[in-house]
């Protein structure tokens, strides 16, 4: 069924793909910190409204946050299932992770649409510009993650993903969890600290 993928060990005994991916995550830290910094630096400097406290919906976003946290749990359960060769549950958890990611994206689409109807766009004020760029960039990352997860799920359905590809699932998980930790910071900095 599955063939163990070729390994790429370095002289440190670590897989080169995992090293490369952690380096990529490190660079993503810099990207998101620059966007968060921009948001914070321009916070409270908008000349016209709407302002954050007038428009942000904390109960709605709290549910989205819970959804993304649960998707991270699904992801680690998928990895654990693939590692022990239980592909039935591996497929279920992978699909559940992607589904929760889609729910999060749906929530973001609803939120953005509501904001636009209330008069907040990229061009309205500094808050709108920095908010949409920050959360939109995060949403784009979630979209990539969902596509990646669905690709893995389809490969698992085709029988092309097995315990021999555990590292592939682990790297996908690293990306997904990073997207989750970025949201943990955004939820606090943008939504709760107004």
């Amino acid at each position, binding site marked *: 069924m599955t063939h*163990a*993928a070729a*390994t790429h*060990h370095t002289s*440190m*005994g*670590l*897989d080169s793909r*995992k*090293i490369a991916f*952690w*380096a990529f*995550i*490190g*660079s993503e*830290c*810099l990207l*998101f*910190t*620059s966007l*968060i*910094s921009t948001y*914070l*630096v321009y916070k409270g400097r908008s000349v016209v409204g709407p302002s954050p406290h007038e428009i942000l919906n*904390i109960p709605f976003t*709290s549910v989205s*946050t*819970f959804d993304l*946290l*649960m998707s*991270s*749990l699904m*992801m*680690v*359960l998928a*990895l*654990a299932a693939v*590692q022990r060769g239980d592909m039935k549950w591996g497929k279920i958890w992978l699909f559940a992770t992607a589904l929760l990611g889609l729910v999060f994206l749906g929530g973001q689409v609803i939120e953005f649409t509501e904001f636009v109807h209330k008069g907040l766009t990229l061009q309205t004020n500094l808050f709108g510009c920095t908010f949409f760029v920050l959360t939109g960039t995060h949403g784009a990352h979630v979209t990539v993650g969902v596509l990646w997860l669905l690709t893995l799920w389809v490969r698992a359905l085709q029988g092309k993903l097995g*315990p*021999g*590809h*555990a*590292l*592939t699932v*682990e790297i996908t*998980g*690293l990306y997904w*969890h*990073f997207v*989750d*930790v970025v949201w*943990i*910071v955004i*939820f*606090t*900095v943008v939504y*709760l*600290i107004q």
Partner: protein
Amino acid sequence: MAEGDHPNEQAHPSAETYLRVAAALVVLTVLEVGVFYVPAFHAVLVPTLLVLSALKFSLVVLFYMHLKMDSPFFSFLFGAPLLLATGVLVALLLLFFGTLTLRGAAGGG
């Protein structure tokens, strides 16, 4: 050697550990939202929220991203840019706060 068999890494946590971490994350999120809505906490809202957020961040990174049991080199690859980014963030905030103070002083003088 199949994918995932690495001599420098310990075994990943059990499903039970993952569930406990998830429960902790849910409790911390409920606390965050609770603190936001309780007026008594408003005096210490920002530090409380930052601590709770840092706890959630650490739990995901240590247990779900396996930095607690993986090679320390991965922690370095993640931690060094994170430290640099945090430093830049703090410097920018201080710079802008400083500029505001100077402007205020100039205007007041």
